[in-house]
């Protein structure tokens, strides 16, 4: 890469050509406040005007997020003109922003508040009527508060880029512009997967998960036996909420915190994941052996299920009828576990901690609204921990409760990363097909973070494919729809990279993470994935069918995979007639 000489504040620097002024300044140790520029300091919009700097010879100030560096450029960030302009930009944005910051759910992660502090915004500098507000709390997964929105457009871009469906868009013109689903509708009344990718990138509190902390509080108040179960991906990221670097494992401390929060039992959804492998594995074998509909497609990701119902109902016969792991585990908790402990299932309140906002929708589906009672995101769990006066740094490492549903295999852990379900399934499939153990554990060829991958599994004589993010997956699904798919088994996850990058995971906001590397947006997914892969490696049992508690569950309760009871408790069905734009807003 060619280098160019530039001057920042009169000092000489050499930087790669092709960088924006913002990127270059960051590399040289300057932090320019910015809002819309989130992608490595590159921005195609240059709309917030918060990152203005003075460039010698340029007409007016330049938006550093889109202005390219060139040879001999002289940049001043600290000139009075630039300082005042950045402050005025922020002050104007604040004048059309609902400023109840103390009560804002984004408090602590608000990038606007951060830049307001950086630029020294003055209170009430500009006042006037605000753009009419829309507050959408109809959708179970996501809340939208337009009065917080600063129109940066990140969510629009993310929705397109990750899911290719463009639920969100700009609407109207001028001061009336809002970012919203069409007709300013609720997320519930448009074909939104509720994956929460938009929530992950929102710099302010305009897009938030639909919090269910109150529900959990109420269950405690009512004296219910509140059982918590945590998804695999949560442990890969929860530590970030407490200031740890991305990629720090949080399993032990998370369990310790959950114990201190007073849960009746602390379980791992990895158990449910192992159970899913048993059911889904047998389902696959059943289809292969009996000439059933192939390829079989996974059903663990509720975002993907939503997408499928809206856009590809034709592939319903291909989709596994298995409920997702936490729903299975909820169902087992309220039957098998309840029975064993002689507890009335009505007194049990199951809380799932998920990296996901779509799971909040999933648990309310009429087909299975009894299994799980509340879904909290990783972020919500962190809030509960923080408000309870627990000091994360000083927590000991503790183990999940060993009580019927306690054991889990390494196969369950890797469910949280794209390709994990496939790998877990492959570990068991050989055993199911041949009745013999197979010594191969790691299937490197299904690992990786690329959006679409395929692999040939010679041992089983099948081809498989893996995709995460609907934009990536749509090609595979289209093939299935057209009957041209060459695969036997396809794993699809709603969010790019899988659950480690789910819509309920801690925010990755480079502006607020001064201790992370500059390229953190490129690396955080791999770092989180590594947490799961290394936990898998540490497990003694790494195949679902060897999980002793699973074996016991089948022996004592379910009988065998795909038994009548299994079908009743662990399987579900889908809606082929889901309307994309139902009546009403």
């Amino acid at each position, binding site marked *: 890469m060619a280098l160019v000489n530039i001057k920042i504040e009169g000092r000489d620097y050499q930087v790669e050509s092709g960088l924006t002024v913002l990127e270059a300044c960051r590399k040289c140790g300057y932090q320019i406040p910015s809002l819309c520029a989130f992608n490595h300091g590159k921005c195609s919009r240059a709309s917030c005007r918060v990152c203005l700097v003075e460039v010698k010879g340029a007409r007016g100030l330049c938006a550093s997020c889109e202005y390219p560096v060139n040879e001999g450029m002289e940049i001043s960030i600290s000139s009075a003109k630039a300082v005042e302009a950045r402050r*005025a930009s922020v002050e104007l944005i604040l004048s059309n922003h609902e400023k109840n910051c103390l009560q804002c759910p984004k408090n602590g992660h608000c990038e606007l508040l951060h830049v307001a502090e950086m630029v020294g915004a003055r209170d009430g500098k500009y006042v006037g*009527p605000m753009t009419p507000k829309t507050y959408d709390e109809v959708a179970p997964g996501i809340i939208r508060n337009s009065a917080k929105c600063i129109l940066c457009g990140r969510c629009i871009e993310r929705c397109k880029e990750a899911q290719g469906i463009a639920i969100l868009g*700009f609407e*109207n*013109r001028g*001061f009336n*512009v809002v970012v919203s689903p069409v007709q300013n509708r609720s997320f519930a009344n448009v074909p939104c997967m509720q994956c929460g990718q938009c929530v992950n990138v929102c710099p302010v509190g305009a897009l938030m998960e639909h919090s269910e902390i109150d529900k959990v509080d109420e269950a405690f108040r009512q004296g219910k036996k509140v059982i918590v179960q945590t998804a695999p991906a949560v442990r890969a990221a929860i530590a970030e909420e407490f200031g740890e670097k991305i990629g720090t494992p949080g399993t032990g401390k998370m369990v310790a915190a959950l114990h201190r929060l007073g849960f009746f039992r602390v379980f791992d959804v990895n158990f449910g994941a192992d159970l899913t492998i048993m059911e889904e594995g047998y389902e696959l074998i059943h289809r292969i052996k009996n000439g059933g509909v192939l390829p079989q497609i996974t059903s663990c990701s509720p975002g993907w299920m939503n997408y499928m119902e809206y856009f590809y109902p034709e592939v319903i016969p291909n989709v596994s009828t298995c409920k997702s792991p936490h729903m299975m585990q909820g169902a087992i908790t309220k039957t098998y576990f309840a029975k064993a402990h002689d507890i009335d299932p009505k007194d049990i309140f199951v809380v799932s901690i998920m990296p996901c906002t779509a799971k909040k929708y999933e648990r309310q589906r009429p087909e299975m609204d009894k299994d799980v009672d509340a879904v909290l995101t990783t972020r919500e769990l962190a809030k509960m921990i923080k408000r309870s006066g627990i000091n994360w740094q000083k927590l000991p490492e503790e183990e999940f409760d060993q009580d019927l549903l306690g054991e889990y295999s390494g196969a369950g852990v890797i469910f949280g990363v794209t390709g994990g379900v496939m790998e877990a399934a492959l570990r068991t499939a050989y055993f199911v097909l041949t009745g013999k153990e197979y010594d191969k554990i790691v299937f490197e060829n299904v690992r990786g973070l690329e959006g679409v991958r395929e692999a040939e599994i010679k041992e089983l004589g099948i081809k498989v494919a893996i995709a995460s993010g609907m934009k990536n997956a749509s090609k595979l699904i289209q093939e299935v729809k057209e009957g041209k798919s060459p695969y036997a088994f396809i794993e699809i996850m709603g969010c790019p990279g899988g659950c480690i990058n789910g819509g309920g995971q801690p925010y990755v906001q480079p502006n607020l993470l001064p201790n992370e590397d500059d390229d953190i947006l490129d690396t955080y997914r791999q770092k989180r994935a590594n947490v799961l892969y290394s936990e898998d490696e540490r497990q003694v049992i790494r195949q679902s069918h060897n999980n002793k508690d699973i074996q016991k569950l089948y022996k004592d309760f379910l009988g065998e995979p795909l038994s009548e009871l299994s079908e009743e408790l662990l399987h579900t069905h889908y809606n082929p007639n889901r309307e994309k734009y139902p009546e009403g807003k």
Partner: protein
Amino acid sequence: MAEQIKTPEQLQERFEHCAHCLEKKFKCEPGHKAIVVCGDTGCLSLNSQSILEEFQKIIKENKMEDKVTVNMVGCLGFCSQGPFVKIFPSETLYTKVTAKDAQEIFDKDILKDEVVERLLFVDPQTKQKVRKQEDYNYYKLQHRGVALVSKADINPEDIDEAIAIGAFQGLNRALHMSRKEVIDEVLKSGLRGRGGGGFPTGRKWSFVPDTDEPKYMICNGDEGDPGAFMDRSIIEANPCAVIEGMMIAGYAIGAQNGYFYVRAEYPLAVARLQRAIKKLEEMGLLGDHILGTDFSFRCHIRLGAGAFVCGEETALINSIEGKRGMPRPRPPFPAVKGLWDHPSVVNNVETLACVPYILREGWEKFASVGTEDTKGTKVFALGGKVNNVGLVEVPLGTTLRQLIYDIGGGIPGGKKFKAIQTGGPSGGCLTEKDLDTPIDFGSLIKAGSMMGSGGAIVMDEDNCMVDVAKFYMTFICDESCGKCSPCRIGTKRCLDILTKICDGKGEPKDLEDLKELAKFIQSNSLCALGQTATNPILSTMKAFPEEYEAHVKDHKCPAHVCKNMMEYYIVPEKCMGCTLCARNCPVACIGLTDKPAKIPGKFVHQIDVSKCVKCGSCMSGCKFGAIIKR
């Protein structure tokens, strides 16, 4: 099938033939006459079509089809006097004609060579009747013929008449030059973009890289400045000129496709353009191997859909791409990465209309008029409180005073001139002291306004400048694309402050805030719309500080426009007691005093200001001028 023009020779032959026909038509053999009727949107909306039809009917009834012709022509430019009818060979020009007048014109002028005196224009200053166009003061200082058709007497729907006045001669010359030579010719002419920015056209073309990728020529006909309509008129009067200009530009930058982006509000312009393109395709003047060369070019039309910001070139490109018309950050500039990410040049209609002239007549002739700063002519849409309203093409360097008083005929109703607003919502107001400013890009900017696309709105003492600033801000707030925060929120906050001031709730501090914010928006917005959005505020604040101060300090609106700071008042000495105002009042707030009025037995009326809704019905109805605003 139209006759093909595939070689320079064929073009020359056709030119000679058509020029001869046109001359014959207007010179007229003895006993022959030609009638033309203005066919511009303005005149058409005053039913000029029915005048044309009436003439056709009368001619038919009199069986004189072989002796008298009648057809539509392009805009004559003196729109407040339209519709026009012009008779050849005498060149008598009748104004404000209706279909009912056709018979009289036919009976007197056509049959007996008598002038219909009552339809002649009366000069507002000399009070004299004027018969021929060239004798109008309105036209005397103009320099028509560069961007506008010199006499506008050609039928805009007849390609042959365009060829007769030299269409495609410039293209033919350009095609025998190298691309660089064409660019140089335009550079030397000093032509600057007529859409507002004033960027040298030749330089803009020269930025297009010499690569093999597709390139696009775009004509910006999204004339959005309220009060400007020259682009529409240019297309309507002579679509071939703009097409030819685009072809020359296309040749110069290496483009094979040209896109016209025209407002959907201009259906006639679009229809004429479409027709001309189709005809030229049939004739082989558009398509492959134009005039026997390797140059191929095709024209396409895209319609604007009512967004002022699409006049900004990157927003316009987004609009052609089927997106919201939100400007793109620059760099990259369109010349490098424009339409569909390929090099593109966007030129305004008037700019392109000047190009054939430059190539046909040579750059020297174009540059022979104008000022050091800006060469050539500029078309203005003169409007507002001025006697002669219409489109004028003046040599650059004409002063504002000449524009308003000599061409515009001064202010109607004996009112006092207050300001002239140029440059539309992006421009500013100039006052009495600026009237001797010669018009060009530099001088207008120096005076505190800008040329813009050529709107020139005259205001008189009855216009409140704070209200005018508020009007422009309302417009800008509606039309801001809403992308960048200074423009989206800043202009709204400016409007909030102006509204507060106009509502009589302003404080002196508001003026400081307004100025500071206006300056911020000017220097930090993303595109030209935002960067110029507050010019009307800053220029009126600069030119009329006392008017702003009266609003915020004394809470008075000197022009009596801002409703909260004025009231209607019945002057007792003038009131006749006729009761008309009381009957007109929609809220019955006019009552009687016990003071006798001039009519015996009647009493002076009085307005109960606490109930008055300030609709003005009383004042507009009073026959004695007894009601005033104060």
